[in-house]
């Protein structure tokens, strides 16, 4: 069966969409050029997963969402993302494609910190957005999905932390796809200027078990010299959403970008998390965890490419597979020529809970420099019966023993999530998916 890959939206639609939002001319132009490229570019080719039949192109593009006056007006499943007793000071809640709620601490505003939705940022901070939007991290023309993203971007946030500003309180974004049919083409742009520091955590959620739609997410994270970015995420799209998520970091001299990604989608997912360590002494720790269930197919690539001397890269992937789920983990370490003293370590582990589940862990090291250190470990295995015996010999039921082993297996990644409430919420999602 031939798959209809004809794009659902044309140039005039995009012009109108852009005009309605009073976008700057360059943005409109970027969208229109991207649409042209999307027609001819191929889909990406994630290693070992065929996505040619996946629906990335047919979807409803726009829906608005009502604003709320207080965080406590949100439904319980959204309130799970924060501590209701101690409400977050810095938060943006996007409901479908509207901002339902946004606030930022006054002190941070006065220091020049920007944390706002992408459309407001295009109006109020046009030059900054223009400087970074699909320039240094992700390019429009990488493949059909990046081009489609650029053409149809319909949500997202912009985070900007000026030079020498260190933020202790986390910034949190919640992307709530309330409408079960609408696609989320979300763009997150995080820029940390020299010697700045921030923690950003995002949550994606939808409930479309039956209705088919698409999430096409591009995240660009730029850490200038000596900047430190801690990036956390919990993705929780329902089974009906086919997801492409591309989170990319660029680190300059002595910059640090740490990722903690809880990838808990129930639908088919292609996830790329690529970090370029450009500067000497730059560091990245890429941690990701997933639970696959049902018949979902997922492909996760974590790649860290190192140009900087003495740069350090650590990839840690953990996955639990149940029922008939299929997951491919690709961990790629690339050390470029000239990156002397670089270190790259990667570990991918998959725990299989069913005979029908499939898991594959592919560690790849591509090294073009002699004076480096690198190592990798990968394993695909089952729950160790000796562990269950040991736990059960203390009176713990088999079910509870398995639960402990599974949570324990995922804990090294879960523990990295920077906000306690989000960590707790991720544990709840894991609990739901595992049991």
């Amino acid at each position, binding site marked *: 069966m031939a798959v209809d890959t004809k794009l659902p939206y044309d140039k005039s639609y995009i012009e109108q969409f852009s005009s309605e939002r009073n976008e700057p001319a360059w943005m409109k132009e970027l969208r229109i050029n991207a649409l042209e490229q999307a027609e001819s570019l191929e889909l990406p080719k994630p290693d070992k997963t065929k996505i040619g039949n996946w629906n990335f192109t047919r979807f409803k593009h726009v829906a608005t969402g009502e604003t709320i006056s207080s965080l406590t007006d949100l439904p319980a499943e959204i309130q799970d993302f924060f501590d209701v007793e101690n409400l977050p000071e810095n938060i943006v809640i996007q409901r479908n494609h509207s901002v339902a709620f946004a606030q930022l601490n006054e002190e941070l505003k006065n220091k020049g910190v920007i944390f706002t939705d992408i459309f407001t940022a295009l109006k109020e901070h046009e030059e900054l957005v223009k400087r970074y939007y699909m320039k240094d991290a992700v390019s429009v023309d990488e493949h059909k999905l990046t081009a489609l993203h650029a053409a149809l971007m319909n949500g997202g946030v912009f985070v900007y932390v000026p030079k020498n500003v260190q933020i202790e309180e986390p910034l949190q974004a919640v992307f709530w796809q309330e409408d079960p049919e609408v696609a989320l083409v979300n763009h997150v742009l995080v820029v940390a200027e020299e010697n700045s520091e921030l923690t950003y955590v995002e949550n994606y959620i939808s409930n479309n078990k039956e209705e088919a739609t698409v999430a096409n997410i591009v995240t660009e994270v730029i850490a200038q010299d000596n900047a430190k970015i801690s990036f956390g995420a919990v993705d929780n799209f329902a089974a009906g959403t086919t997801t492409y998520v591309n989170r990319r970091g660029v680190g300059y001299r002595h910059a640090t970008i740490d990722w903690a990604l809880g990838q808990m989608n129930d639908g088919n997912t292609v996830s790329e998390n690529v970090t370029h360590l450009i500067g000497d002494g730059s560091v990245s720790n890429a941690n990701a965890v997933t639970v696959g269930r049902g018949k979902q197919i997922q492909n996760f690539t974590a790649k860290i490419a190192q140009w900087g001397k003495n740069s350090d890269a650590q990839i840690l992937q953990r996955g639990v597979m149940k029922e008939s789920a299929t997951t491919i983990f690709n961990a790629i370490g690339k050390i470029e020529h000239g990156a002397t003293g670089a270190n790259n370590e990667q570990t991918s582990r998959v725990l299989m809970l069913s005979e029908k589940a499939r898991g594959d862990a592919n560690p790849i090291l591509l090294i073009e420099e002699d004076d480096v250190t690198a190592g990798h470990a990968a394993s695909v295995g089952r729950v*160790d*019966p*000796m*562990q269950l*015996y*040991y*736990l*059960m*010999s*203390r*009176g*713990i*039921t*088999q079910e*509870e*023993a398995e639960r*402990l*082993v599974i*949570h*324990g*297996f*995922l*804990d*090294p990644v879960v523990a990295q999530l920077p906000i306690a409430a989000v960590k707790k919420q991720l544990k709840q999602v894991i609990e739901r998916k595992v049991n």
Partner: protein
Amino acid sequence: MAGSTLEIKNLHVEIEGKEILKGVDLTIKGGEFHAIMGPNGTGKSTLASAIMGHPKYEITEGSVLLNGEDVLEMEVDERARAGLFLAMQYPSEISGVTTSDFLRSAINARREEGDEIPLMKFIKDLDKDLDYLEIDQSMATRYLNEGFSGGEKKRNEILQLMQIKPDIAILDEIDSGLDIDALKVVSKGINKMRGENFGCLIITHYQRLLNYITPDFVHVMMQGRVVKSGGPELAHRLEAEGYDWIKEELGIEDETVGQNA
């Protein structure tokens, strides 16, 4: 009735088709400390594992009863909740699960839903036992047995014993690999359990543990059977004279399981 009774009758056990235990009889009552001694390879650890329900061991004959209930019909976790405990020679490492979370799960497994141990009481009790066993408080938040030294694993087993408070405990070579200071601390923990509601089976092939824990009964295993039983004086004689005199008495040349008398 004071305490529980564990009765092992004519127990035969195989592993991978090879018979290791060839008819063990032993009764342990609340308030009693029993020691099983014997050289390596005579079936002591097999006895411990078979009673607890280790998946690799197959019972081919005989019975194990706890207060008259058939233990062999129970799942491993049911045996534990019925009152049995095994301090293992090689405890598993459980990555990602802290000692504290694990202990709380084990304690709550014995309580009804809605009647879980209050967190503050749990922490207080745990701190007390950690101190008693001279274990650093940090162990509570370390992943269970992961990266523990041999001595730390043994202390952790005794910590679990003290926290879970079983009716009948089997300690499988709890003394192996311990230096003298650690041995004293571990013994102190075991002795603290003494009482009419606690029975204990200590498996060892060194007499030195019994310098710190005085058994009421001493049994010697050879060729997969209990070949001699006596009081604490038997352990002293074994230390002084070794096992050869028993072999001579029984006409045994090789005491290990592979050989039939």
